């Protein structure tokens, strides 16, 4: 199962003006794999995720999804995005819709499911993340942790093949971090491919198949959690982890 490649990032470059943020990134993601990306602030982790689902346009290199380039002119971007979900640091729930509508809207407009089926599916997912009692609430009436769990349900509702998480817990108060991490853990190893940018080292270690360390626009080191956290080869990795773990 792990042999099938779902996403391949090849020689990816991204510059904003003359500021080169991503410098030749190469990355293979297998189907069903849980990959964590760690690294210092400003190293380009968010930019990498945003290039993967085309919120940013790469300036060089290629990205393959099921071995097809997502950058070619005839590639259906909206269909691709429906299959590659994203969970944002700032939740980004639709402010004009309530919890249930947030989880239904993608299903009905993009996947064209009928309202009843979308609702059943949404309720199932909301129950799983513990947000079923709040179906009528508007996003601004919820805590950050609750909003993020709804956002995860919203992404899941599209039945995506890949889910991207961009620091899903770093905007949360400490006591709400766990409820979100638990939700994510329960998704791991269910066949869903996950790419998680995070500063939660313990979580990354426990849940990932692969951990990538990103430094200044390049992937400095990639390996199993054990390799990265116990026996980091690169000096930059060692320094980062030392600094990071001593802070906690």
């Amino acid at each position, binding site marked *: 199962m792990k042999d099938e490649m779902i996403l391949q990032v090849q020689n990816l470059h991204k510059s904003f003006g003359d500021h080169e943020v991503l410098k030749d990134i190469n990355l293979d993601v297998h189907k069903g794999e849980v990959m964590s990306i760690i690294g210092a602030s400003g190293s380009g982790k968010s930019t990498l995720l945003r290039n993967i689902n085309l*919120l940013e346009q790469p300036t060089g290199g290629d990205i393959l999804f099921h071995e097809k380039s997502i950058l070619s002119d005839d590639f259906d971007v909206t*269909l691709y995005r429906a299959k590659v979900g994203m969970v944002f640091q700032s939740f*980004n729930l*639709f402010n*004009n819709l309530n919890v249930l509508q947030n989880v239904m809207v993608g299903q009905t407009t993009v996947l064209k499911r009928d309202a009843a089926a979308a609702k059943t599916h949404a309720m199932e997912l909301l129950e*799983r993340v513990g947000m079923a*009692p709040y179906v*009528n609430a508007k996003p601004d009436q919820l805590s950050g942790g609750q909003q993020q769990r709804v956002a995860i349900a919203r992404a899941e509702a599209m039945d995506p093949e890949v889910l991207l998480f961009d620091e899903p817990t770093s905007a949360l108060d400490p*006591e709400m971090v766990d409820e979100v991490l*638990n939700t994510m853990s329960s998704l791991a190893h269910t066949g869903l491919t996950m790419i998680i940018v995070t500063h939660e080292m313990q979580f990354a270690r426990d849940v990932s198949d692969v951990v990538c360390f990103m430094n200044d626009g390049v992937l400095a080191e990639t390996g199993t959690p054990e390799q990265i956290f116990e026996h980091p080869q690169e000096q930059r990795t060692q320094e980062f982890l030392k600094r990071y773990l001593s802070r906690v």
Partner: protein
Amino acid sequence: MSHMLKKWWAALAVLVVGIGVAGALHRTPVQAAGKDNGEFKVGMEAGYAPFNWTQSDSSNGAVKIQGSNEYANGYDVQIAKRIAKALGKKPVVVKTDWDGLPPALTSGKIDAIIAGMSPTPERRKTIDFTNTYYVSNMTMVVRKDGKYANATSLKDFKGAKITGQLSTSDYDAIDQIKGVIKEPAMNNFPAMRAAIESGTIDGYASEIPEGSSAEAANPNLKMIHFAKGQGFKTNPDESDLAIGVRKGYEYKAKINEVLAGISQKERTRIMNEAVANQPSTGNTGNWFVGLMQQYGGMLLRGTGMTILLAVVGTLVGFIIGLLVGIIRTIPRPRSMGKRGLLRFFDWLLAVYIEVFRGTPMIVQAAVLYYGSAQALHLSMDRTVAALVIVSINTGAYISEIIRGGITSVDNGQFEAANALGMTHFQMMRKVILPQAVRNSLPAVTNEFIVNIKDTSVLSVISVSELFFSGETIAGQNFQFFHTYLVISAIYLIMTFTISRAFRLIEKHMDGPKNYNVMNNQMQVETPHIGGTTTARKDAE
């Protein structure tokens, strides 16, 4: 959808540019746009008694006003009837603002101007005139109990504040008074009479029939009888009244023939009759009841027209604003061809917004209505023209309001919608516009209210909205204060109702302040904010 839209925009742009260019190049007189259908269409203000006024019934031989339930009467109307009869046509009165008369004539909306107009050399450049149909002498109207009531010579008006009607020879004649303070010209006689009563001017230059009418109708006013040789010196060319026609008008000679057949004695008789028949103030009982009885219908129709213009204009303008908002936020397509096309439409929309925000609505209305008739030979219904102008004009403003509303929506909302795989249109409809519209609603309400008030400028194309009706009424009953008080009250009621209604809509859009927690026995856990969080199951 977007294809239709593009075509529509292209057509609009072509129309606007076309009218402008054609209007500039194509200055030759045109035939009546309405063609010769047995009607003799006469333009007049229908608010310049005793020459012409508006009344609500057909008494004393009044003539129906085109596109309204009201009638016009007065010296001009009686002359018009005689001419129409001789031409074997049916007389029709087209009620038109003073400044709208020449363009209405050159564009073929009317066949003749019979409106107490004198054939100045300036006017002769654009239109033609028949022989004199009324020999008029100039006078001055002042306050009866004022400083100038006993004046007998122009010299007595040294230091007096005097005005006259805009673009008339009367106004130019004020220069003959040495040491006079020439006030800016005013638009119409009701306004000048009100200005005398309020003391902002000491008097206005006018013609004798208008002066005697003013005197008869308003006890506070007096017409000056100048001593021989001490009054205004007038050039017959400029002060006698003639009928304006298009250059090369086929019936001009025939009209002169008819005029020659009306003797001086007969003219005096018609004028005396007109002075006697002009609507009286009817000062009986409560002024409000009186006003409503006599003019309630006119006010109601004026109010209805104002509401129609404002509601349709704002609604269509809003839809235009939404469409422009959607188009202008389309992300840059990948292919070069589409990108160029999008750029072009963006540019077109920017031009549209700048042109319609950058020019007064009164000018836009005149260009569309008179310009389209003159240059493109298009005969447009004036209500339709008014609706089109208000809608397009409002659309330009609301487009910018909506654009502001869209930019104020958090960028995360766009990204989340994109990440779900929504198309631009889906994203706009489901996520962005509902929020943008909510953000824009106070500004849109403002536009609506502005439309209620500013549609008053559409009187330039003779649309009888509330303000135009008010002017007409005040011109007849001379009760300026009372009439405009009622008009103000009606405007206030409309605008207040709108602002309240939109408050309710805003509240409704915001939804309830609270939500109900669904107590579902199926639920796995009931998290409370800051309360029990489940243990970190994956902690070491």
